[in-house]
């Protein structure tokens, strides 16, 4: 996909460079059309393609963990302990492994993807312009919302038939009781203890 887009960009560059060196060609009608395609249509398509590729790429686990401060969070996905919720989800493919971060941290609302991108830009600003926070000090603004768990688990038989879940479903949906902070599933990214934990090594 990226290869096709780069090919399209290269073709656009070739077309555009014709008018960089020979702008007088546009006096002929046929070249006017070529100029319109080379300087307006193709660059516009390249912009749309580039934005689409970058947005898709920004949702990958590899992208998130390419930021220095996120490296320990990426390592915590390999902790060999089923009580660690992110590790258990990642290792058993309960979320797509190549989109593990985004699956649980995306804002599943109408303007969610836009809010996610704005939050990401704010983090880039913190990382490169101001003093970045220590990895362990990073907090999700407003805390981790149950909606992100319920996006997948709500409606699932194993989840709803669990008597603990069924008795407190309304409080879970209203976020009164947190899935993570209520003492039920409270081991998330335990990056403070990474040195003392065992790690799972995938075959590939």
């Amino acid at each position: 996909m990226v290869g096709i887009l780069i090919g399209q960009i290269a073709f656009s560059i070739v077309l555009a460079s014709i008018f960089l060196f020979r702008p007088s060609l546009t006096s002929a009608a046929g070249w006017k059309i070529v100029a319109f395609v080379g300087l307006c249509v193709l660059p516009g398509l390249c912009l749309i393609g580039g934005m689409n590729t970058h947005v898709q790429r920004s949702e990958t686990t590899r992208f998130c963990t390419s930021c220095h401060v996120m490296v320990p969070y990426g390592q915590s996905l390999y902790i060999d302990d089923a009580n660690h919720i992110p590790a258990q989800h990642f290792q058993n493919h309960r979320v797509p492994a190549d989109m593990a971060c985004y699956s649980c941290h995306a804002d599943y609302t109408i303007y969610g993807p836009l809010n996610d991108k704005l939050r990401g830009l704010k983090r880039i600003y913190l990382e490169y312009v101001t003093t970045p926070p220590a990895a362990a000090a990073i907090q999700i603004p407003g805390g981790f919302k149950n909606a992100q768990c319920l996006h997948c688990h709500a409606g699932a038989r194993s989840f709803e038939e669990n008597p603990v879940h069924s008795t407190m479903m309304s409080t879970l949906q209203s976020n009164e009781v947190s899935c993570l902070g209520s003492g039920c599933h409270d081991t998330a990214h335990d990056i403070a203890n990474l040195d003392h934990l065992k790690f799972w090594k995938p075959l590939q």
Partner: protein
Amino acid sequence: MKLSTIGIRRLLRASSGLVILGMLLEIVSLLWFHPLSFVLFAFVAAGLIGLGILVYLVSLVFVAGPSESTGR
């Protein structure tokens, strides 16, 4: 040579230059897997390409100008 013709050619050159520079930066951003590559694309490459397209569209307005003045 009319002044407007020289102006159009300058605008076309500027447009081509901006589009080419923006596209080269877009290629760099696509090959560079890093959070900053998104910033490079969204704020620099996209800005240059968008400006290039805008300059080209402005040059079209210049082309339309002389035809109207001659009554064609």
